[in-house]
């Protein structure tokens, strides 16, 4: 019970992270194509300038909460994806500096450099995070002690000894990156006016169309790659609510996009991301890390737990902490609501 609560809490933090930092990433992906002039670029960056850092903290908090509730899964997962995670760190450094340092020097080359760094890091991060989700779905080759070490790639197949990148995780990576591009372009359209908004709408429409195809492929691929997901959904069909809600969100997003309703499309893509992660969590439960070789090696909410007292103690501070962060975040996002004023 307690374990399930914390499983949901970690999922919730990660899902909110994906929605909030997701539009930062998506904006980064479309940034150089949408904003062609210096003024447009400044406006684009100003739309996330004061809030992107707070958005990123959801990732740190989700990681902290995973460490707190399921230290064994944290230890196994982080050491197993060693190379990929360290590369993520380097990309996060590049993206953070690009956003913070671009304005510090008035020189074209300086700005061009950080523009490329911002787009490049955002695109790669979106791909890697999607591939990470793919790895969680497909599973990893855990040994008896509950550890593994995943190569960046092996034969690109989803066998018992897969690499971090295979056809499935690449599909998930590309799907996620495209969804985030759609999401970020919707955000930018919502926050801007004039020609920049027109460009953002075009990028959103383009990426949205591709999303429709990719999400369809991913939905076919997931039960094929991970049979335990199929069993979970068959045993508790109420869980189908999440993927169906996701489909509805996608259709709504495309329809609102067609009608040029920017805010509506943005909220619809937010719901799409939330339900996508909820669907994954529903299919995976009670596993946190699924073993590809022997199901007995899987790390679950029970065998990776941090102990009863610790989890109960968390109930003292988590509700307070969570209410506070919602308050701060609402405060910060409200302070900069509406169109960006250059």
């Amino acid at each position: 019970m307690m374990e399930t609560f914390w499983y949901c809490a970690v999922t919730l933090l990660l899902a909110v992270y994906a929605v909030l930092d997701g539009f930062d990433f998506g904006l980064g992906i479309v940034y150089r194509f949408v904003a062609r002039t210096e003024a447009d670029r400044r406006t684009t960056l100003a739309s996330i300038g004061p809030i992107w850092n707070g958005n990123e903290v959801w990732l740190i908090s989700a990681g902290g909460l995973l460490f707190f509730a399921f230290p064994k899964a944290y230890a196994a997962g982080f050491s197993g994806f060693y190379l990929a995670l360290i590369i993520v760190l380097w990309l996060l450094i590049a993206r953070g500096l690009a956003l913070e340092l671009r304005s510090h020097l008035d020189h074209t080359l300086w700005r061009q450099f950080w523009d490329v760094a911002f787009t490049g890091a955002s695109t790669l991060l979106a791909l890697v995070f999607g591939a990470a989700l793919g790895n969680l779905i497909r599973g990893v080759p855990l040994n008896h002690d509950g550890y593994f070490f995943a190569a960046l790639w092996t034969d690109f197949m989803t066998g018992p000894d897969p690499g971090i990148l295979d056809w499935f995780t690449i599909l998930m990576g590309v799907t996620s990156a495209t969804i985030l591009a759609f999401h970020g372009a919707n955000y930018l359209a919502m926050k801007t006016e004039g020609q920049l908004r027109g460009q953002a709408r075009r990028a959103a429409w383009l990426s949205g169309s591709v999303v429709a195809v990719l999400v369809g492929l991913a939905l076919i691929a997931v039960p094929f790659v991970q049979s335990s997901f199929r069993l979970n959904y068959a045993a508790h069909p109420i869980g189908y609510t999440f993927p169906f809600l996701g489909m509805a969100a996608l259709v709504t997003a495309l329809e609102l996009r067609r009608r040029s309703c920017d805010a509506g499309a943005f909220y619809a893509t937010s719901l799409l991301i939330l339900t996508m992660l909820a669907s994954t969590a529903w299919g995976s439960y009670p596993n946190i890390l699924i073993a590809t070789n022997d199901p007995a090696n899987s790390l679950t909410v029970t065998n990776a737990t941090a102990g009863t007292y610790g989890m109960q103690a968390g109930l003292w501070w988590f509700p307070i902490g969570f209410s506070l962060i919602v308050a701060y975040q609402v405060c910060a996002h409200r302070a900069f609501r509406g169109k960006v004023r250059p």
Partner: protein
Amino acid sequence: MPSAMLYDRLQFAFTATFHYLFPQLTMGLALLLLYFWSRALASGDDHYHQVARFWTKIFALSFAFGVVTGIPLEFEFGTNWAKFSNFAGGVIGQTLAMEGMFAFFLESSFLGILLFGEKRCGQLMQWFAALMLFLGSWLSGYFILATNAWMQHPVAYTVAPDGRLFVDSLFGLLTNPWLFWQFTHNMTAAVLTASSLMAALGAFYLLSGQHAAHARTYLRTGVVVGTIAAALMGFPTGHGSARQVFEHQPIKGAAFEGLFKTERGVGLLLIGQPNIETMTIDNPLIIPDALSVVVYDELYAEVKGLDAFPRENWPDNLPLLYYSYHVMVGLGTILVSVMGLALLWLWRGRLFTANWLLWLLMLSAPLPYIATTAGWMTAEIGRQPWLIYGLLRTSDGASPLVHSGNALFTLLGFLGIYLVLGLLFLFLIAETIRHGPSGHSVSSGPA
């Protein structure tokens, strides 16, 4: 030592040391910023507004570097120290998760408002954001120090049947007796770093004949706060920290004092080079009986030397530990003297014209950084060979399947990237200083 372990240790040591160059400034500066924003709000004076805005800009720069170099540390617990995370996650997961929820959101949400929200949110909100920023950065320090304090002095845990540790009292973990001196000593050091930098910049502007009004404010604030902080570093926080080391980690104490043999009436070694082969100190300069007095308030108190402990429990790099400690204490002494002198001159109304003293203040700017780094090296090298004191050896904490090729690859990557980061920071700080507090630099607007 297997090479993967060496790279794991070097990588954590390097990334943590580099990271902490930034938070020590931002945590200290958060306090001074709160003061400036309060003055600005109370007086409505444009001067204090400008001062507050300028230092907020420096804060933001240091904060950005602190954030991007801080995230790797939380990841590295898992990536490089998986067995440690698995073993102790049931305890330190609490403080690390709480840091994320209670501190990081506070800092990042309100820094955005402080930096970009002046037009949108008004002055009172600006001041409130400064207050929250101070609260957030000090809470962050508190939670991460609670984590380190537990590794230095484990309390409030039970051992589960599978050998892993679980917390058994959250209150006990958050009020670890080790934490009191560690927190006060560390946060005072952060204030000293920030105020020294502020005084140094004031001295630089005065000496170069620029921004005189600003320079005087920086000097006054930096010197007054800096003197208080420098004094508190020694007594009571440094003294308290040292006593607690001798009480709970006597091997560490003996090692950093360079005390090889157990003696009565031990002198305080000021300088000298430890010789591990002969177990003696070369070229010693000693104050007789002083160590016994400082630690035990007694002229002839016995202080245990390294010979009282089994060799496998000695810290594995004695000379480095010894030098770290002596560098910290030495630089601390110099800083107290410089700051004290400057305060005296300030009080006599002569500081702003005493060029030699302004030069001294300016050149002292790097010293708190070095002293703080050396202090942390004392704490952490002195904790060896333990990762969690008395419970888990460092050699048992690393990730079992990350081999040396991978670890070296990422270590080299971090070395390269952080070299670039360090250069970038210095370059941008120099730019900010050159533009000055009243200059209209491009960085005043968002993006």
